[in-house]
């Protein structure tokens, strides 16, 4: 992406009336159409409404109103984030056509900052998956190789940015659903600290793990969006009332002398050699930036995936109970009786992965198994948190691979849920611990597929994470590369 397509440049130009929001958005809509034809990344798009909202921004500017830092910036939104002006379906049949009567907190914040929401993007149904193949609509394809998955669950948002259709997209990250597709699509993605961004209006998958975060092509735009969407919201009890730094301004400050942790467990069996090599090279880059590399262990890391899949399914089984055919959403056409309204509506409305997780979670919470599964998982979660607390006593940030491999082929893992779950092996720990983590591009495989690396930091250390990532991007050009057909 050329600099003129970055969110910060667009916002500057639109605010200064060098470009109109309408022209920027019209251009984004064209690109989205083209990208959607190629990669099937959209769930909903309303060109007329979107252009009207862009003209609103232009009018606000013309009228001399204060406009926020995202003036005229087109943003794509994962379709599990509520919008009153576009349907919100979670790529599920059970919410087919559902239009919320309200906007999510992050949507309000973006619009107040002058951004224009241009589309709702595809995802694994209810954000459950790592490839966007679990969408009830259709799978999304990776722009670097359309035979491969974009990752998931926020695949549509990652592709929208990777294909340079929009500078910014929002996703949600429960176990890696922003970082893993960012890695597989060669873009930047940030999962903030749990509680940094209000979840109000994010359709819950696993409430104690879910967090909204941005995709962008570089760290500066990530910082810009985070400053807009983060902050306290009285409507989310788990949103933390912590001081909110100006993340974009923080980037201009050097990160200082960093101690970067290298986790032994990250470089064990299962890590693809090209990925290992790219991440090792990144350590060298940081060393050349003056960082000290600290070798360390997260001893409970091997249990993270098991722990994660017990907790997220338990919470999901409860969060998804409300989709019952009674109050809204899909209802079976001819129920035999009232119990059948529930049973048949849910059987017909949910896809196989969602059903699998509801059943796993129901089992883990059921009487007689609750202690052995759910409670034990909670205890392991505490151990994993403590691992990080210990690690951050000896280092400032942890660097490692985001995913064990680059993008895999469509259909490669759909028959093997366990293999699919292992795609999250490096990302789930940050959700379990609640800490912030981001993925940025750090190389390519010999086949030309992007490789991502993950930086994780202590709670509310987003500024330091972004500073380190910006320092890395000042020395490297991986993030500037776009897939061949989308180079502008």
């Amino acid at each position, binding site marked *: 992406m050329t600099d003129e397509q970055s969110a910060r440049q667009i916002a500057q130009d639109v605010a200064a009336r060098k470009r109109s929001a309408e022209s920027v958005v019209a251009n984004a809509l064209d690109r989205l159409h083209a990208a959607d034809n190629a990669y099937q990344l959209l769930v909903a798009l309303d060109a007329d409404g979107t252009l009207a909202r862009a003209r609103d921004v232009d009018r606000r500017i013309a009228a001399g109103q204060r406009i926020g830092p995202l003036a005229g910036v087109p943003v794509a939104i994962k379709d599990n984030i509520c919008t009153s002006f576009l349907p919100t379906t979670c790529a599920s049949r059970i919410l087919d056509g559902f239009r919320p*009567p309200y906007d999510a907190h992050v949507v309000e914040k973006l619009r107040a900052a002058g951004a224009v929401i241009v589309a709702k993007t595809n995802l694994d149904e209810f954000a459950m998956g790592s490839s966007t193949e679990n969408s009830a609509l259709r799978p999304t394809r990776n722009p670097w190789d359309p035979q491969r998955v974009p990752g998931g669950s926020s695949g549509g948002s990652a592709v929208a940015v990777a294909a340079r259709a929009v500078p910014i997209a929002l996703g949600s990250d429960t176990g890696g659903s922003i970082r893993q597709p960012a890695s597989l699509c060669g873009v930047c993605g940030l999962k903030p600290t749990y509680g940094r961004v209000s*979840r109000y209006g*994010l359709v819950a998958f696993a409430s104690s793990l879910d967090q909204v975060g941005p995709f962008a092509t570089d760290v500066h735009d990530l910082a810009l969006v985070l400053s807009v969407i983060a902050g306290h919201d*009285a409507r989310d009890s788990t949103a933390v009332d912590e001081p909110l730094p100006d993340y974009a301004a923080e980037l201009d400050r050097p990160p200082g002398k960093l101690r970067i942790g290298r986790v032994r467990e990250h470089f064990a069996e299962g890590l693809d050699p090209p990925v290992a090599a790219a991440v090792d090279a990144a350590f060298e880059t940081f060393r050349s930036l003056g960082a000290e590399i600290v070798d360390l262990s997260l001893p409970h890391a091997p249990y993270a995936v098991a722990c994660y899949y017990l907790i997220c399914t338990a919470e999901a089984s409860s969060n998804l*109970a*409300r989709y*019952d055919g009674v109050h809204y959403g899909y209802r079976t056409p001819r129920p035999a009786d*009232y119990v059948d309204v529930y049973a048949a509506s849910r059987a017909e409305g949910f896809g196989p992965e969602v059903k699998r997780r509801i059943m796993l979670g129901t089992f883990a919470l059921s*009487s007689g198994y609750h202690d052995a599964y*759910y409670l034990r998982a909670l205890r392991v979660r505490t151990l994993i948190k403590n691992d990080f607390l210990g690690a951050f006593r000896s280092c400032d940030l942890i660097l490692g691979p985001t995913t064990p491999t680059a993008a895999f082929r469509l259909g490669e893992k759909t028959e093997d849920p366990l293999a699919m779950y292992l795609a999250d092996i490096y990302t789930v720990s940050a959700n379990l611990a609640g800490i912030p983590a981001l993925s940025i591009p750090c190389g390519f495989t010999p086949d030309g597929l992007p490789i991502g690396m993950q930086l994780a930091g202590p709670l509310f250390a987003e500024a330091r994470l972004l500073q380190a990532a910006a320092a890395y991007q000042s020395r490297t050009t991986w993030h500037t590369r776009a897939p061949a057909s989308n180079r502008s």
Partner: protein
Amino acid sequence: MSNLTIRPIIGMETHVQLATRTKMFCGCPVEFGAEPNSRVCPVCLGLPGALPVINRRAVDLAIRMGLALNCRIATFSKWDRKSYYYPDLPKNYQISQYDLPIAAEGHFELPPRDAGEPRRVRIRRAHLEEDAGKNLHEGLDHTRVDLNRAGTPLLEIVTEPDLASADEAFAFASELQRLAVWLGVSEGVMQKGQMRFEPNVNVAITFGGVEYRTPIAEIKNLNSFRAIRNAIAYEIDRQVGEWRRDHDYTLEKCGKLNLGWDDDRGVTEFQRSKEEAHDYRYFPDPDLVPVTISAEQIDAIRSEIGELPLARQERLRMQLALTDVDAATLTADRATSDLLAAAIAVGGDPKTLCKQFISFWSAQANARSTTIAGLGVSAPRLAELANLTRDGTISATAAATVAQKMLDVPAAPREIAAAAGLLQVRDEAATREWVEQAVAANPQAVRDAKENPRKRQAAAGFLRGQVMKISGGKANPKLVGELIERRLAEP
């Protein structure tokens, strides 16, 4: 049957609707009788993406009730999801408190009955939760759901099985309601379902040296005190009857069961056995943060509680030598009881005030379906009326008339009495004239008084009444008595 003793064992679960303006987890107003589904929002509708936020007022009220029930208040309490599918439950889970209730391990002293000992009912726990909506069954083929009530804050109070009879359960339920209303914790209107009771009933039967326990029956959703008494009495008889037919009708062999109460037919009806009970799959609600309550907060709430109704009832009874019933009437509601105290504090005569509260003031309140406090008469005016009566400035009969007028006219009681010509006349000449009229009109009474010592007192009393009547209540009773005595002493 010989040597058979039965001992009912009764515990009570009570749902108390808290008197908050808004719902437990959203800002929707709590309002009875509004247009269906008009008091709802994304949160209480359970829409995707909506999140609950705790109503701190409900937490404060729960603490207040917990303290009044002598409970230990949890400094750390959390929220749990209770899962079950029902159309009136939009999320298909209820936010409740499972293992860390806000209050626990309390007790409530029931006043002694029939010169017995006071009864201590242990409170096991009291926890906060949200109410469900209402299913409106309309005919055979469809049901509509009204979610106005969904999310209304409830405090569920659970006792240990310490109640020993239907009457005791009745007394407990009504005292609990008085307490909740007294404290401002609930409006406690039974007809609006603001207090709902679920007694657990079984019977220990000792026969031939062996103790049998009948199955524990939970009678669901009773919302009148009379239904509580009748349902429990019925259920005790039913269980003993079942056991007489079959000694295997025991808790051990038959388990627990849920019953409904048919108020029209006066019978309990089987709903389901507890074996069919749901697995509620409780787990901590990840959308809510735990509630931490500081010692200062508890102390602040404790300091607002003041004297509880039973304590005040007992104090009034002792201080003013009242009967139990009168003392209870004077402490039926806090505002009225406080008004009485205020009227005494500004110098009103306590005995006369009590008499007037119990007689005409409570009649006026009943006639207007309110409490005495609800009549809106100020403490100084109440005190003045009482003192006018005590001093003999107006008669007791006239006081009732003045009271009636006080509700419509803001003037001082003395002015009202004067305007209505109800001030007593101390004029001796006028009074002597009324006495002469009474004597002339009642020669038989005069004869009885003079000649029959056994009838003297009654006859004199009769004549006093006649004088009061002739005077239209204006004569001073004391002066009338003196003049009659003097007149009867004349030859």
